[in-house]
């Protein structure tokens, strides 16, 4: 019953976002600000994770492929597909659920507790539109870009690790990257990225927007939003894999 109530309130929050903006310029400004916060703000952590993710993936694949009948370039092929299909969209989005999600929840929670949201409402501003929608749109716009960057960096990381440790040459790695490439995998990765971006922005926005109480509740809402987002990302990952692959 509680789940249905919460889900209903979540849908009402989403529905409440759609109204005529009081001033389109201000909404655009807020959208750009959020793009910068979410995109530029997360670029560093995404880059670090992606490079190491690709590097570890290359080393572990090489460790497991011991058969002399499998060409070495297959390592690069496996790194490419793992990074595109799973690591970049899912792992990066789970990390972003922590980084971006907790930021959104605590920012909105703090605004709620300190009556800043009430102040905006009294000015005649639809706070769901002005505060929540730019965050969700910015996430849906920027996170797929981060996923693409992550995939590229992941492959670069794999290449660096593979060549530096002498597992295979740069030419062998590049050959592996090109062989049996399916563009559909990129479409699948993007479908995941858009879905996850929506989850990791809207869920924390819901928990943050509806905080009541004080500082302790902001922390709780932030933690809860990250946990719920991560679980939903994994659940959506399974559903999308089952449906699209």
């Amino acid at each position, binding site marked *: 019953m509680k789940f249905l109530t919460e889900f209903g309130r979540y849908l009402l929050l989403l529905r409440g976002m759609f109204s005529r903006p009081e001033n389109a310029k201000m909404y655009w400004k807020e959208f750009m600000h959020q793009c910068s916060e979410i995109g530029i703000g997360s670029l560093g952590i995404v880059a670090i994770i992606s490079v190491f993710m690709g590097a570890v993936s290359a080393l572990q694949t090489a460790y497991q492929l011991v058969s002399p009948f499998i060409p070495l370039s297959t390592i690069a092929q496996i790194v490419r597909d793992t990074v595109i299909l799973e690591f970049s969209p899912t792992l990066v989005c789970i990390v972003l659920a922590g980084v971006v999600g907790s930021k959104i929840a605590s920012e909105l929670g703090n605004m709620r507790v*300190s009556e800043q949201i009430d102040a905006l409402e009294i*000015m005649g501003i639809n706070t769901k539109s002005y505060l929540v929608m730019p965050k969700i749109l910015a996430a849906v716009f920027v996170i797929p870009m981060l996923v693409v960057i992550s995939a590229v960096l992941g492959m670069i990381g794999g290449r660096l690790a593979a060549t530096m440790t002498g597992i295979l040459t740069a030419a062998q790695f590049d050959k592996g990257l090109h062989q049996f490439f399916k563009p559909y995998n990129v479409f699948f990765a993007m479908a995941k990225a858009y879905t996850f971006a929506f989850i990791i922005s809207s869920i924390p926005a819901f928990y943050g927007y509806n905080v009541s109480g004080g500082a302790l509740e902001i922390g709780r809402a932030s933690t809860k939003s990250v946990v719920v987002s991560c679980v939903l990302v994994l659940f959506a990952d399974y559903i999308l894999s089952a449906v699209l692959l």
Partner: protein
Amino acid sequence: MIEVKNIKKGFGDKTVINDVSAVFQTGKCNLIIGTSGSGKTVMMKCLVGLFEPDSGDINYDGMDFSAMNEDHRKGLRQSIGMLFQGSALFDSMTVEQNILFPLDMFTKSTPGEKMKRVDEVLDRVNLQGANKKFPAEISGGMKKRVGIARAIVLNPKYLFCDEPNSGLDPQTSLLIDKLIKEITTEYNITTVVNTHDMNSVMEIGDHIMYMYQGNKEWEGNNKEIIFSKNKLLNDFIFASEFLRDAKDMRMLEAEGKIDKQDLDELLK
């Protein structure tokens, strides 16, 4: 003028406001006073539309607020300014940006005109030179003044102040009270102040409504309040011995048993 008719509001089984009616007049400081939990804040939140009353009507200069759709309410809200208990300034913005925000959102003025208006209201609240400071860098009293500046920047017709003196020292409280009073008269707006600060009651209470456990218990002004016979009101106002003594002396003065000059000297 804001007219409230038979407002009721409850949360679950608990009735917080019970059939309250009142008229808040234009150009006057209308005070809602009462102990904590008496329903003052809920009353104010109903007035500004943050809470929907369970029943009753709220009329803003004859316009029925309860019957308005969201678009009409948005229009009306642009003529409402509110000072919050904790000031509710946007932490990520400077003082100047906080005041500019309503102008940016709702006016089509040029940047120069907007800045001129910001300077005007900052002058009005005696905060010249604080433009570039962030809320975290200014004192509680200054935050309240920035809150007032933001509330009046769009020339509102109605001003709501929720506990404007909370957390302030007596001198700063007095300055804030004076500012609210001056702005009310100068702009001829309907001001509603939620307070339990007795200095405010005496200083700016043109019209006072005392609430007790969700009911309107007494109504009058700052001249009448001191001579009220309402026990609940007297228990609330004259909670301290000092104030009780002061009241007794005022009563003696009113009855001609003590000279006014002597009394003033004594109270000094």
